[in-house]
Each structure stands twice: as C-alpha cells, then as structure tokens.
C-alpha cells in the first residue's frame, strides 16, 4: 500500500524536534501503537480480532480520536438522512408510477420522460442543482453542514430547527433521484398487471375499479420490493456522494476526510459499517417480502 501514513503522523508529532534519535523514538512508538511494525498477515489477524470486539483502533488523520468515536458521531446523520429519504422516494415513486399506468394519456406523457431523465441524473448532479437553486440563489436553505456552525449540539428548539432546515436539501435531492427510477419500474409492472387475465376477468365480473386497483398495486409492489433490495447498495453509494456535496456530517464526508488523510483504519471501518448497513437493509426487506407475499408463506407451510 502506498505511502506510510504512520510516518506522516509521527512527523506531525515530532515537529520541531532536532534530535534524530528522539524522532526515531516517536516514530517507533507510533508504529507500535498502530501495529504497523508487525508483518501484514499478523496485522490482519489482529485487526479481525479487534473488529469482532468492536474495536477499530485509532484514526490516523484525526489522531488521537478512535475510529469508533469518529464513526459513531457521523453514522446517526447518515441513517437519519438516507433511511427516510430512500423510503419516501420509493413510496412516492411507486405511487406516481402506478398513477401513470392507470391514468395514461397526459399525465403519463409528462411524467415518463421527466422521470426517465431524473433517474439518469447522477445523485451529486441533483444535489448541486438543488443547492444552487435553493441555497445559493433563493437563499431559502443553508448551503452546507448538518446544523448551524455557531451552535453546539443540544436538545434546544433552536438547534432542532437548524437541523431541520439543513436537512431539507440533502433529503429532497435523494428523494427526487429515487423517485425517477422507481416510477419507471412501477409503471411498467402496473401496466403488465393491468393487462393480466385476472384483471380482465374481474372487470367482466363487474368488480369495482378501486378494488381491482388494490389487487394490481399489491401484485406490482412485490417485484418493486425485490428491486429495492437489490438496488439499495447503489442508492446508498449515490446518497453518500450527495452528502459530500452538502458537507453533511455523515459517513460520506467521513470517507472523504479519510481518503484525503490516507487514513486506512477509518476507510476500512467506514466501508465495513456501510456494508453492514446495506446487508441489514437487505435482510429486513427479505423478511418484509416474506410477510407480504402469500406464496412464500404457502411454500413454507407445505
């Protein structure tokens, strides 16, 4: 691996020292602290053992903070931002897609090309555009951060308000990006279901339209849930880059500072945490799918 990040931090700590053996001692102390004096395979085993105990070691770029400390201060922001945003975007997208499939004509003609273009805009592009329009030009929202710089995090109303105001732009940029792709998927699924035999049969029987729509929507939802599970990784990575554009104090910025500082422990821990989060989301969606789809219950009871 390129560069010796421990040398950089040792040089920072030994600044102004003219005594060569002193500098050497500082360097050795840090290599021991970070464990880089041992061979790579041994380092890896030690790392695995520590991670299992929940110990990610010290951050190099933000020494003497521990990696666990850095991550725990940023993971809440990311969870609070991305989980609601992706869910809201998914629900709105599905509703719009189903509406487009049901109404067709005018609504569909406007919505389809719009969502096709929206879903092709990269997440950071949407973030920059919203930022420029609503924060720089209209000045409705602040340009960066998770709360006002002048404030200290506390449970006061002012602080909560500041958090809410800072929350809007990152939230809506993720929602808008999510809507496009989901609407397209839902629309084609709903059209497919609307043409299915059971819908025609129900129509001939004179079942009310609103009831048919409920069945159609439910059936079209199932593949959409699988789709969400499979694309959640891509969504999260897009949203992380969007966080960076807004300097939101979440994991996206943690990765950025780690990359800039050559901070190996922080990078590996952050990516590990994100992977865990995605896996957890994946797992809960699978369980949800089992609850919603009667076929899975039926298969299990056989």
């Amino acid at each position, binding site marked *: 691996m390129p560069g010796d990040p421990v040398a950089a931090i040792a040089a920072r700590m030994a600044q102004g020292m003219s005594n060569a053996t002193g500098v050497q001692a500082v360097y050795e102390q840090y290599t021991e602290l970070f464990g880089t004096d041992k061979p790579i395979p041994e380092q890896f085993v030690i790392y695995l053992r520590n991670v299992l105990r929940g110990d990610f070691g010290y951050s190099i770029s933000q020494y003497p903070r521990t990696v666990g400390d850095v991550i725990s201060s940023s993971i809440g922001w990311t969870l609070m931002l991305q989980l609601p945003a992706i869910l809201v975007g998914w629900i709105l997208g599905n509703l719009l897609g189903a509406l487009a499939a049901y109404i067709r004509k005018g609504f569909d003609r406007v919505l389809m090309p719009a969502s096709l*273009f929206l879903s*092709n805009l*990269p997440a950071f592009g949407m973030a920059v*555009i919203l930022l*420029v329009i609503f924060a720089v030009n209209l000045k409705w929202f602040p340009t960066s951060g998770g709360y006002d710089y002048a404030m200290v995090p506390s449970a006061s109303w002012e602080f909560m308000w500041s958090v809410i105001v800072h929350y809007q732009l990152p939230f809506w940029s993720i929602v808008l990006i999510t809507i496009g792709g989901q609407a397209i998927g839902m629309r084609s699924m709903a059209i497919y279901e609307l043409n299915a035999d059971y819908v025609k049969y129900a129509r001939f029987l004179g079942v009310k339209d609103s009831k048919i729509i409920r069945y159609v929507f439910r059936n079209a939802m199932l593949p959409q849930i699988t789709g969400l599970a499979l694309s959640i990784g891509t969504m999260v990575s897009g949203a992380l880059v969007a966080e960076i554009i807004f300097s939101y104090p979440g994991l996206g910025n943690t990765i950025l500072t780690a*990359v800039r500082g050559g901070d190996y422990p922080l990078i590996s821990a952050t990516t590990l945490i994100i992977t865990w989060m*995605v*896996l957890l989301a994946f797992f809960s969606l699978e369980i949800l799918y089992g609850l919603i789809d009667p076929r899975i219950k039926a298969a299990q009871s056989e």
Partner: protein
Amino acid sequence: MRYMLGQIFSSVRFRIGFSIFAFILLTVLIYPLIITEPPLKTISRGTFLSPGIYVNVYDSIGFSPQYTLLLDGAAERRIAAKLNADDRASMKEWLVKAGLPEESIDTQDTAALLEVWHANFDPTIRLPGMTNADRNYYIRLNTALDGLLATEGATIAVPDATTGALKEQAVVDQTSYVNIYEVPNSRVFPLGTDNFGRDVLTELVAATGVSLIIGFVAGTVATVIGLLLGLISGFLGGFVDDAIIFVTNLFTVIPSFIILILITFSIGQDKRGAITIAVVIGLTSWVWTTRAVRAQVISLRNRDHVNLSRLSGHSTAYILMADIFPYIASYVVMAFILQVSSGILAEAGLSILGLGPRTTEVPTLGLMMNWGMIYQAHILGKWWAYFPVILVIALITFSLNLMQTGLDRVFNPTLRE
C-alpha cells in the same frame, strides 16, 4: 441484419437516444481537429473567467482600423454599465440622509441625479448611522462618477524613451469602434475558464472522450467477465455453478461502490490512470450480467436443439457459442449499454471522493466536477464550471438508457404496448 437495423431504428426511443449519443460522439471526434490546443493547458491568469469573447485591448486601441458609428443610446448604455441600479439607490439614500427632500431625487434621470450629487456630496461629512465602510464606499463611488457624463474621447499616450514624458499618440473617441475580425488577437470562451484558467469547453470535450473510453472499457470488462461466468455456471451446473453463484451473491449484497473505494484507495494516487480506474470499475460490476445470463442459459440448456447438438458430439465451447450465445446476444448488448453508462457514473462518483484518475494527464467528467466542487464554483455562482459537466453526464446516461429501452422493446415483443 438489415431488417433488424430497420426494426431497431423504427423505435422512437432508440432514435432519440442514438441521435444524442451520436452528436456527443461526433463532437468528441471532430472538435480536437478544429481546436488543437491541449485540453489541460492553462491559458489565463485568474480563475473562472466568464463565458464570452475576449478581445485584446492593446490591439484594438492601437493597431486596428477604427470606425465611427453613430448609434442611438450608446452613451446611456455606457453610463448604465458604470452606474447600476444599486449605486443609484445608495446615492439617493445618501442624499436623503443629508437632508434633501426625497421627491426631488429622480434615480432614473442620470444627468439630474449627478448634478444634485456633485452639488451636495462632501466626503468629509459624517452622517449619523453611517459606518466607516459605508463612507469609504461613497468615496469610491464618487471617484468612479468623475467624467461619467464627459463626451470627449480618451487620450492614449506613450512615455518618451529618453525623457520619460508622456506623448500623445492617439485619441479614442466615444464613437470609435473596431471590427472584432480585424483585431489580430481575440479568443472565444463559449464556456469561460475553470479554476486553473483553462478553457472549459476544450477541457469538457476531452473529458467527455476520456469518460466515454472509461465507460467503454469498464463495460467491456464487466460484460466479458459476466458473460463467461454466466455461460459457464448456467450450462455446467453442479459444483462450478454453486461456486460461481456464491461469489456472485457476495458481490450482489456488498455495494460495488464500496469495493471500488477500497480498491482504488489501495492502488494509490500515482498509479491510478484512467484505464486502470476503468478496469477496476469493470472488475466490480459484472454481477448483474452474470446473474441474468445464467438465468437465461438455464432456461435454454435443455432445449431440443441444444440436446441435439450435444448428441452430435459438439464440444461444450462450440455449443455455448453456436447454440446458446445467439439467443442471449441481444440481452448482452443491452446489458453492455447499461454497464457503459454505470461505468461513467461510477468514475464520476469516485472522482468526487478524490479517488479518480491522477490529475496530471487527462481530464475526466468526474475530475472536472471534483475541481469545480473543491474550488466552490457552485457557491460562487460560476455555473459554467460545473453545470455543463452535469448536463453532459446526464445526456450520456440518458441517451444510453433510451437506446437500451428502445432495443428492449424490439427484442422483447411482450414489452410493446
């Protein structure tokens, strides 16, 4: 073949997507033939010059033929450029504070306003409630107003080589004009310059080319790996299938962007070229192709013609190429198109994180975006440094996806409405 092309081009979506993509591709190919300047050459001092035509001042006042044009409203426009609405409002504010009746001041009548101003303004007066900064602003404004209504021209003088005294050389009248085509040095910046003082349009065209190559290489690597693994695992089944599907599942649940971050970070800044990045992107994004190809191969492998081929003693490789591949070829082409577009997006995301190709050789769309963000182009309102980049990225992915859905309609008749 001709029939198939006709079919494909009868799809409106494909036609739109193809035209956008062809336009971008042609621009990338033709532009460097016309403007041969290297894209990363710094050609201006100062950052973020706004888009426009830059004419050499020295040439236009000294050496180009000058013409007299008598145009209406030239003086008004000249004054308006020097004295904008804000300045007029603050002049009025000062005069009102100084005790003049508000109705008597008309901010639209420049001559009258200047007259009242010159009669009343006194830089030594300290008005109540005015900060020092305000006072300095008014003093600067007052200096700028000098000679605003003058009608005589400006004199160009050169210092005498021996005495150093200024000698009049020419007079530039207010009605003098030059023809821009007769000024030997002028330069058009259709999209201004960026933070390093480079021509954004030239840079953008080069970056688009490099990003397309990255997308193409990444797409090829991903499609080849995905196709091979999918064919093998779907056709052979058994242990090989289990092993491949295990790896595929692993890669499906771990976000490929995270793997990308880890790999590019480990490669290190100086070893990351554009092609290296492209190959790494390709190596992490083959999963979807594998899954889909495998599913299709499984549905194909017990068809009669495949069994017949097997009975005839053809080798596995031959069966895969001759009996199975033609059935999935259209799908592979569509998957390839999507891989190209996601490869371009992945590069952009990586570059914004600071993990893009090293910056000294070639620009990419992601790197341009990264530079724009680092130098705060979006906060400073320098739209030309980031918006064209976003637009090009969106247009490329939009056109590729349109082409893909168009192809999908042609090859999957069930999707037609």
